[in-house]
């Protein structure tokens, strides 16, 4: 298969604009354990796609493949026209792309993790300006200006000199979002970002993500928050056992699912408390 031709084919489509993220026949296994069994998904610029599904269905692995924190075995991922993780050598074989190129691609893809993963030895401000200065080559003053803008956005401007351990889980997660945004990424990935939070702190993080979606950020959101998946997602994807079982507009997927597995899952998770 000629990858170059395919990329051009992707980006020259006149009637439908090139997707921000294109995932084709993605396979990934750990040893004999197949985690992703052929994922196909295209996400447009500015689109918010929420991904739901039972634990172990491959949702988080899928996100990790997009910025190549996890390698994949088969298929390909294209972000804004660039294939992630692999290049072809002279003989048409696929080899891991040079680290330098990979690092450049990763700068364009923000990710927020379930466990925040803030750097505990740095203040909030230092956490946010670290990569813009060290990786993107911004001046310190420029990076601080960007960081403060992002802190305003997540409502934590007054915490810039705090250390992560002095913040609540919700505040830490909002800092993590600001840290990702400070690199001016083309898209943001959210990997169960509210799952480690106390229930009363979930709202503030989801609020920040709602604002971000409203601002037109391209987002892939793996979540167990069904109300959020329905309200914020332009499209909802249901994954199970390494495959996309069903995808569609929120109203259709939640209230008129076509597949039996989707119905069974929704029946399990949609309790009266979930507000759906």
């Amino acid at each position, binding site marked *: 298969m000629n990858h170059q031709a395919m990329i051009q084919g992707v980006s020259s489509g006149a009637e439908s604009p090139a997707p921000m993220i294109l995932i084709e026949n993605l396979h990934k296994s750990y040893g004999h354990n197949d985690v992703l069994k052929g994922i196909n998904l295209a996400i447009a610029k500015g689109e918010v796609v929420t991904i739901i599904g039972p634990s172990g269905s491959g949702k988080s692995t899928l996100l990790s493949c997009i*910025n190549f924190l996890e390698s994949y075995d088969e298929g390909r991922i294209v972000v804004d026209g660039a294939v992630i993780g692999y290049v072809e050598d002279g003989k048409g074989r696929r080899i891991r792309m040079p680290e330098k190129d990979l690092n450049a691609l990763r*700068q364009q893809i923000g*990710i927020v993790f379930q*466990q925040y*993963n803030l750097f505990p*030895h740095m203040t909030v401000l230092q956490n946010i300006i670290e990569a813009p200065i060290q*990786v993107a080559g911004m001046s310190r003053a420029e990076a601080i200006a960007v960081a403060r803008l992002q802190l305003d956005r997540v409502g934590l401007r007054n915490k810039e000199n705090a*250390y992560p351990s002095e913040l609540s889980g919700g505040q830490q997660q909002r800092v993590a979002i600001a840290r*990702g945004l400070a690199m001016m990424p083309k898209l943001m990935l959210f990997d169960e970002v509210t799952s480690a939070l106390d229930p009363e702190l979930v709202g503030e993080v989801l609020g920040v993500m709602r604002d971000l979606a409203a601002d037109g950020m391209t987002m892939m959101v793996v979540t167990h928050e069904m109300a959020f998946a329905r309200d914020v997602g332009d499209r909802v994807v249901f994954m199970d056992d390494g495959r996309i079982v069903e995808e569609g507009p929120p109203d259709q997927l939640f209230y008129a699912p076509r597949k039996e597995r989707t119905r069974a899952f929704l029946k399990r998770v949609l309790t009266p408390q979930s507000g759906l």
Partner: protein
Amino acid sequence: MDFDLQLFLQSLPSLAQGAVMTAKLAVISIAIGFAIGLVGGVARISRNRVVSGLALAYVIGMRGVPLLVTLLFLYYGLPSLGLRLDAFTVAIIALSVTNGAYITEIVRSGILAIDPGQMRAARSLGMSNGLAMRRIILPQALRRVLPPITNEALTLVKNTALVSTIALADLLRAGLEVMTWHANTFSPFAGVALFYLLMTLPLIWLNAWVERRFRMR
């Protein structure tokens, strides 16, 4: 007991001279050993098998051979291969290379104790492996392993006593000479012990200061 206060006081100046040599050896070897340990610790967990293999071989080799044997081998053994190093150089090499092997293992354990999520977060922001190691992982790891590293530094200060076997005028050697000339064993060694003790105190203070200064929040 033959403690002789006058002899004790008399011996202090020459002991102090020896202590200066010991302090010089200790400071230089601790610095070099620490540098080796930093590089070695990172090399031990390298994905490059050759790099991690070499680091492992170094650690096994230097932890398995007594420092005294390393000293004697470098000083008396190498000249038969045509390589003659002066006693000071031999002492610095033996002390820092031995110390570096222990620090290597301490640094490695410190790196492995850091949550893998830290590296994932750093890499996701576009940092190279080296940059993430330098700016994110090592600063956290070193804070955690400061106490065992201080321990190694204290051990090194005291291990410098072994260099008296290769004719370096260190603290122990100075004490031995006083003993020989005055046929009194207790007084000079009381002084020697006191000097070693005094020399370890700054390291303990340094440890406490660094721990306060870089407290992990």
